[in-house]
């Protein structure tokens, strides 16, 4: 069935669209998507530690942290 790009997952680290292969990984009991091993590592070692608080905020709005740095549009 047709999937518009905005329905496809984005990499939790770099924000790129993940067309088909959904590389899932578990992170602090959360199911997350990343586009590659590298992004997963960068998320673990840089993005998450650095933005822990902001990410927690976003998660309340159902965003795993891909819209970091500004209030999500809606």
């Amino acid at each position, binding site marked *: 069935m047709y999937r518009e790009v905005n329905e496809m997952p984005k990499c939790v680290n770099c924000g790129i669209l993940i067309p088909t292969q959904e590389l899932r990984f578990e992170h602090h009991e959360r199911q997350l998507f990343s586009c590659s091993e590298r*992004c997963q590592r960068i998320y673990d070692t840089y993005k998450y530690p650095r933005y822990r608080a902001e990410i927690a905020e976003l998660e309340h709005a159902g965003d795993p942290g891909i819209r970091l740095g500004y209030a999500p*549009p809606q």
Partner: protein
Amino acid sequence: MSVTNTRSTPLDTRIDTDPILLEVMRSHLITSCREMGIAMMRTSYSPIFNEGLDFSCVIFDASGEMIAQADFCPAQIGAIPHVVEWCIKEVGPENMSPGDVILHNDPYRGGCHLPEFMVLKPCFVDGEIVAYTANIAHMVDIGGLVPAAFGDTRNIFQEGLRFPPVKIYREDEEVEDLFRVLVSNIRTPRFGYGDLKAMIGSLYVAERRIVELVEKYGEVEFTRCAQDIKTVSEILARRAISDLPDGEWTFEAVIEDDGVEPDQEWTIHATVVVRGDEVIVDYTGSSPQSPGPPNQTWGVTASATYAAMFNIYGAIPFNHGCYRPISIIAPVGSFVNVEYPGSCVGGNSDSSPTTVDVILGAISEIAGKGTASDGDTCGILSLGGMDPRSGEAFAHLHFDGGGWGGRHDHDGNSAQVPKTSNCANTPIEVLETRYPLECVEYSLNTGVTGRPGAGEFRGGFGTKRVMRVTAESMTLSAHTNRNRVHPWGKAGGAEGGNCTVRLRRRGEQEWKTAPELLGSISSGKFSNVELHEGDEVSLGMPGGAGYGDPSARAPELVAEDVRNGLYTLAEAGELYGVALDPATGEVMQAETERNRS
């Protein structure tokens, strides 16, 4: 599980391929890319290709990673790895057959913007995919609201026709009805069709070469070389990075109005983190995406990032290996990673140069040196209508050269398109033969608004072009930057000039901005203005910013600029404190000293 190792996984540095063979193989591949380019240039219809060279030819290995390219448009080279990688993933190699060609231009799927058409061809040997060849090129018209695409579009539907991965060739056969769809939705079907065929033709050229290679050296050898080619570049890239001190540096700049909300500015904010042999470029802190077209797709942002990084790489064979040490973080739905159905046609041309300068700005903090900001706009004008001579519809995508920023050791180049797009200016004669336009003036832009920033090493001059409409009527749209924001100076250098788009109705004396003449929102970005025969449009490109204290500039250089008509005597005085003899133009040392102290 949660990874704790903060370093990138240690690199396997063993290169067991004989270095000679590796070099042969690599140059062979690069030559193949060049051949693709030549084929493209010779067979394409549109000036943007055979003159503007706005395309890139690339070869990927079976794993979908770039192994070769010739020096083409960096903005495309940086994005194409992702386009190809995601394209292969979405279609699935198992669904590809020999002779298939896949067409793709979806900006939300790693692409740059709609006009950037990418064709991809799997190369088969004995029923196995051994490599892919791809060509990414800028189609002038793709339907939509604006002929030649660039204006103040508000969403993807206004920008034109979008192709997620779709097979346009099946087993060496044109998928005819799909071509029909394509040509019925673009204003210049003959060109569109011809250019697309040229792109596809170039894929066949490269494919032949690759097949030769594989047949000559065998698939195993070929595959190993492909791996090693990338590894070698990665090793060199990581070395270059390791030479930098670890640390974080931040820089930001703004993109002025998006054509929809004139008074709003859009921030590109980057933090460059150096960790040993890898770099993280984190755009967190950039603005949300704008309603108008200057947003960057993920691919554009990645390209700009790589383009900037390559400045510190130096001469490294350019392939996927170079990307591996670089990680990018681009918040979804932000100005640097636009989300469907956000508009984004302008990001690739006019925002990405600024992004590059932002990264360079940050890096220069690290590496010292650095540069002042370039003009950073392509000064794009989209013109479309009926050509009375051919009776055919035409669409012209016009861009011109701006001035680059002064470097720490020399002046900025003049009249050169932004560094993200090493495209050439379209020659006047070609312009006039191809389109119902007459070029009234084409010179360096020495005007006060546009002139470059002064500095020990001044910025380069932009161009000034005036064109007159020779058709009964045509529509003009524009997408330019730096109409209000100035390129920033460095190390005491003055800020650069502004871009100007002015219009003059036939028979009138004075030049007007689009808002003055037509009440459009923005003077730099607007869509489908009706021009009539004899109307004129003037495009002044901004000069780059200056590097270093102007008073440190060698007076002789100033004198030479004046001799060359770039500065007036008066300007030499006010900008550089250099006094010249009105009669001879010689530097008057004593007076100059006095002015400068």
